[in-house]
């Protein structure tokens, strides 16, 4: 199913995220998000420019099902998140979405391997997928870490014994374990220097492609945008943000 308005991606046909007429406001405040339409296709990598104040955090919260939309619909894999209870949204999130944040993504008191395995402890679906593909959750963690350039010597180290760059790669492995359909990365490279940034992105793209995972990459660093399939600004997307700007 090819959608109009998204040229150049005829082979990426399945819609992963589908937002229609989304509105959200915190209680007692003006509307923060007003997004008439937004889609992300399966396997697509999207650069979303999101300066502070653009409603970025709230949008990610809605996509993760932490909040429910005030009006309109957020569909992930065809499932309307607003129609689910908050517990079901939580379950749905962990089954289908991996996260990487700016920094401090890891639990410092667990080993690298335990950190990577965490999503499989909370999602049976992802544990199953990891086992199916790699034999066991543990093997999946080792393989992913290997692909991201982290050798076995680091596996049992405490997560906070690693450099920031290594930690971000551990976080990427954790977000990708069990092949979630969507990976949301929120400024994951802002703590890295320019060289590390590009190599990190290449590794991330490679792994996303292998796992068939779509990447929603939020950043304010426009220089990274050309590396992605598509690039959007949240300011263009969010009518409420445009009002705030004006």
């Amino acid at each position, binding site marked *: 199913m090819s959608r109009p308005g998204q040229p150049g991606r005829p082979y990426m046909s399945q819609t992963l995220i589908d937002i229609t007429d989304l509105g959200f406001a915190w209680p007692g405040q003006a509307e923060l998000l007003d997004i008439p339409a937004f889609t992300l296709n399966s396997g697509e990598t999207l650069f979303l420019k999101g300066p502070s104040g653009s409603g970025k955090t709230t949008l990610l*919260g809605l996509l993760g099902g932490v909040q429910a939309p005030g009006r309109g619909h957020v569909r992930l894999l065809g499932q309307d998140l607003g129609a689910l209870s908050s517990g079901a949204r*939580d379950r749905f999130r*962990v089954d289908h979405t991996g996260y990487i944040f700016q920094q401090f993504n890891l639990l*410092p008191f667990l080993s690298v391997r335990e950190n990577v395995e*965490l999503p499989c402890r*909370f999602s049976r679906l992802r544990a199953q997928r990891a086992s199916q593909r790699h034999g066991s959750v543990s093997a999946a963690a080792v393989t992913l870490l290997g692909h991201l350039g982290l050798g076995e010597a680091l596996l049992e180290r405490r997560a906070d014994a690693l450099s920031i760059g290594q930690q971000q790669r551990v976080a990427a492995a954790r977000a990708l374990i069990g092949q979630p359909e969507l990976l949301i990365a929120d400024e994951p490279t802002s703590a890295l220097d320019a060289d590390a940034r590009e190599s990190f992105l290449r590794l991330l793209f490679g792994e996303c492609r292998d796992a068939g995972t779509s990447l929603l990459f939020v950043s304010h660093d426009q220089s990274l945008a050309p590396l992605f399939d598509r690039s959007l600004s949240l300011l263009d997307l969010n009518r409420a943000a445009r009002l705030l700007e004006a």
Partner: protein
Amino acid sequence: MHLLRLALASLANRRFTALLTVFAIAISVCLLLAVERVRTEARASFASTISGTDLIVGARSGSVNLLLYSVFRIGNATNNIRWESFEAIAQDKRVKWAIPISLGDSHKGYRVMGTSEAYFEHYRYGRAQPLKLAEGKPFADLFDVVLGAEVAEALKYKLGDHIVLAHGVSTVSLVQHDDKPFTVVGILERTGTPVDRTLHISLAGMEALHVDWQNGVPARGTGKVSADQARAMDLQPKAITAFLLGLNSKIATFALQRQINEYRSEPLLAVLPGVALQELWSLMGTAEKALFVVSLFVVLTGLIGMLTAILTSLNERRREMAILRSVGARPWHIGSLLVLEAFALAVAGAVLGLGLLYLGIAVSQGYVQANYGLYLPLALPSNYEWTLLGGILAAALLMGSVPAWRAYRQSLADGLSIRL
């Protein structure tokens, strides 16, 4: 199971505070259990101070007072009872045996008790255990003395030693019966009762000590009676302090008690040892309960310390919670983590507390037995102690639900990303 692993790993990351918390709980648990164990043992040992005696008879006063001076060697009799009264009652056909007791002298702070051979034969303590001689034999001669185990041990006396008794019962005795020394002929086995702290002599010996006394002072000069002269005299006592009765049939106890209480020729009081012990214990029970309540509060303090430690850690752990949320932990997982944490701290505290208790008992067992006559068993916790421990854990769970609720609310509000 995995949540428990997470909770423990997170605790290990804060091991210094965690250890302090565990230690505070351990000390409070140890204190509570120790108080409880001493309480239980003290009550048991108290109740077994005297056994097999059906009635204690003395001059009319209060039952607790009578029990205190006749059995516990504490305090003094208000009055003596006449020998004739003792003889008359002892010869009643319902009476199986009678042990006369004559008090009033002491030796280096230990009470001296004048009694008869019936004492060694019929006196029972604990679970109807008879008195046994560790060494020597019962007194036979006028100036023989049989020592309680503690007296012999504390004063390092052995058979054949000569000792001088003192008039009166104050530790610093004013007048010594130094003209009539006694010979140690027997040492009793340890009983864990006041018997251990008593010197036993015959009634005649007691009489001989005081035969030349008049108006509470020893005779001087020609009035003095030497030890040898005393042997030739009539040493039948005219009065004793109290006596213990064993009856042929328990059924007769109340009838005889009433009869003694209504004894016409002098005012007497007969009490049932069990009832008097109960009465005495209920007096001490207040102190004992207060101790228990205090140790309960110490446990509460330990748990509040834990609550404080966990609550303080919550704010600095917001990121930890957000990370857990982002990898799929639901808010109730976060709440459970904190309850588990509280529970783990309390379990560790309880286990360590038990360890401390057993260590303490193992170390002090001998000392406590020797000095207080209390045998603290190195036994597994009793059902009651398990109940207490269970109560502590339940209280910890209850307290853990406070930070759990806060973390639950917090993680709902914070969502997945928190930047600190």
